């Protein structure tokens, strides 16, 4: 049935996840034909300026194939958002969603059978694809859009040997802590604004007889990735973005004092049996709990805090109100102090494997603010870091929160580090060792083992 379960680093593939509301809304509408559902009318109604695409020549009757990890039901808004482009140019976009995208795209590229465009969720994978020699640098129009509408950090992730390969598509924020607004109100808790306050809040909850934190890191063969996100978030907070970049690029060793301190800081939460694992068991139960189930105890009242990305919204059951005044919401995982605002996140990049005019035109469309706004209108549970995105077009409160964090001028965005590290570390040793660390291995052995796995 669900053979070939998870693909490499599919965590980031979750980028396109939608919130519970949309997920079931779409299911209820039924059918992915263009006539069905109210949202599509919005999409086709919002005509766009066709001028940027006419200069690619007459594209009528041409086809562009898109291959992505975004599958049912999140694919429906994706496909709908292409409509204005198809209307403008007469191009047909052939969409193929595949959960195993991240292994298959490499297989297909190596075999000489790549799609026209792939939405690649990790910078590390972009590098591997470029190394196959099949990826094509992005056209100047896309580079111009990327420069104009994105934080410079984003453009650097797909610039390899001086060539720019693709603009970001969607994005998600990982530095979030989920909580129950009702519980905070009843118990008179304040949303913390510094790491010290977060600690104090956790202690206060313990004093109130609660186990404040809950977590789950089981995720098929990707088990362990949520811990790596924790560690990255703390690396970013304790040492700042510059050291974070050095750590990711291995300019400083993985078993240096920075890693050790970050792991230990995470350990003061996740390996603290006073803090975890609310509603799920002891510290070890973190390792056996599916990441999808990790935050659900908040709804049961057996847990108060859960650190997980914005896409986690999709895991709450049907009918859960996700809003500041609802059943559940999230706050920004605070920085060390108010002077900085590091943001850990992820997203996917549009990488082309063909340089036909229609492919270039479509790439340009996807990097435009027009597309971002159309996409925002037809979907919920979707955010972009495109500065041209008007947050008012977003439907969900959690999306607005995420967009607000991403587009905050003070924010220092950094892409998920394990997605950038070499695969032997970023999607193997780091996950495995982090899991062993949760089940009892000490920090020194853990960081030493990861350092050992780094390809020479």
């Amino acid at each position: 049935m669900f053979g070939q379960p998870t693909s490499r680093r599919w965590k980031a593939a979750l980028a396109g996840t939608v919130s519970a509301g949309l997920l079931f809304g779409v299911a209820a509408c039924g059918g992915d034909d263009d006539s069905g559902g109210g949202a599509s009318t919005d999409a086709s109604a919002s005509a766009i300026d066709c001028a940027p695409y006419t200069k690619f020549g007459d594209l009528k009757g041409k086809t562009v194939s898109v291959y992505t990890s975004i599958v049912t039901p999140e694919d429906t808004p994706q496909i709908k958002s292409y409509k204005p482009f198809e209307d403008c140019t007469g191009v047909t976009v052939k969409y193929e969603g595949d959960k195993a995208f991240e292994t298959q795209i490499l297989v297909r590229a190596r075999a000489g059978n790549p799609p026209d465009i792939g939405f690649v969720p990790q910078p590390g994978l972009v590098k591997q694809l470029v190394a196959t020699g099949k990826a094509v640098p992005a056209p100047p129009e896309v580079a111009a859009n990327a420069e104009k509408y994105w934080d410079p950090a984003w453009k650097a992730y797909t610039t390899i040997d001086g060539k720019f390969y693709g603009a970001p598509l969607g994005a998600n924020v990982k530095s979030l802590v989920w909580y129950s607004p009702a519980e905070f109100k009843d118990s008179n808790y304040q949303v913390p604004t510094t790491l010290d306050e977060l600690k104090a809040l956790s202690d206060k909850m313990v004093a109130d007889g609660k186990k404040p934190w809950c977590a789950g890191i089981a995720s098929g063969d990707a088990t362990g990735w949520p811990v790596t996100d924790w560690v990255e978030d703390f690396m970013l907070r304790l040492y700042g973005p510059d050291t974070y970049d050095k750590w990711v690029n291995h300019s400083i060793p993985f078993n240096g004092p920075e890693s050790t301190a970050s792991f230990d800081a995470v350990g003061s939460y996740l390996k603290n049996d006073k803090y975890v694992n609310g509603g799920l068991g002891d510290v070890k139960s973190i390792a056996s709990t599916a990441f999808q189930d990790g935050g659900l105890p908040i709804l049961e009242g057996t847990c108060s805090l859960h650190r997980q990305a914005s896409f986690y919204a999709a895991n709450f059951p049907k009918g859960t109100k996700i809003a500041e005044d609802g059943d559940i919401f999230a706050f920004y995982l605070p920085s060390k102090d108010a002077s900085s605002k590091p943001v850990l996140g992820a997203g996917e990049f549009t990488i082309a494997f063909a340089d036909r005019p229609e492919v270039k035109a479509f790439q340009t469309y996807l990097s435009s603010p027009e597309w971002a706004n159309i996409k925002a209108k037809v979907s919920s549970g979707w955010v972009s870091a495109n500065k041209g995105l008007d947050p008012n077009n977003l439907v969900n409160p959690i999306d607005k929160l995420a967009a607000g964090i991403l587009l905050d001028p003070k924010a220092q965005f950094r892409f998920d580090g394990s997605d950038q590290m070499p695969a032997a570390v970023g999607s193997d040793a780091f996950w495995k060792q982090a899991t062993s660390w949760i089940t009892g291995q000490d920090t020194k052995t853990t960081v030493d083992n990861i350092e050992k796995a780094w390809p020479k």
Partner: protein
Amino acid sequence: MTTAVPLPTATAEAAAAKVKAAEVAKKKLSSPWASFAVIVIALLWTIPTFGLLVSSFRPERQIKTTGWWTFFSDPTLTLDNYRSVFGAEGGVNMADFFVNSLVICIPAVLIPLSLAALAAYAFAWIDFPAKNVLFLVIFALQIVPIQVTLLPLLKLFVSWDLSGTFWTLWLAHSTFALPLAIYLLHNFMREIPSGLIEAARVDGAGHVSIFFHVMLPLLTPALAAFGIFQFLWVWNDLLVALVFAGGGNEVAPTTLALANLSGTRGTAWHLLSAGAFVSIIVPVTVFLLLQRYFVRGLLAGSVKG
């Protein structure tokens, strides 16, 4: 070996023995320990699936908070899980995937079965140089992990301009099935008394006519049995489909559709349980329909008759 066993001559005698043996068997089963063992095994083998079946009809929240056995004290039924499985994709689409699965399966069962039967016959009853070495090589090929073959094969299919068509799946599944099929069928063929073949040869029959007139009738149940296994493996395959069916939903089988249907919702028990049942309906039906071949025995009927 079975050659130690003389073939029965009179059918009447055999029939009488059969009746007796049946009685004996019944007696044997009536021994309390034997019955107990059968019931225990049957329960162990059924309960896990049964639990999932019950769960697939329970509301999401109940699945996550109480065991499926509480269903019997507090029965709440819902079809929501099945609706979510079919609803998002639309019933018509699901039918398309079923057609694809069938179109993939039928040739992917028939082709290797015929080829393997020929090859197994050659190995079992024809003498030629290097026979044993070849047989061992083919036997050992069973262990080549399918994953190492995917990239070279895909390259080949791309250069033949076949990628994204059913042809890739037919060829790939057929190839992968051959070593085991040849090994199993060869073993069945060796069981056939050599006297039968020799007699036919003395009568002047060639290998083609022996294959059709002596082997095939005797082997029908064995072929049917292997056919069922091959059908199940192809039907449940995801890996091969994933690599070769790439390029759209036109040729994707149900397994692929269901895998993507579970979407980013990952291990949501309520969807997994319903999805699992959708995916096993066809294989179980096929087994039930063709089961009589197993009950009759792989070679038994004809050799003895």
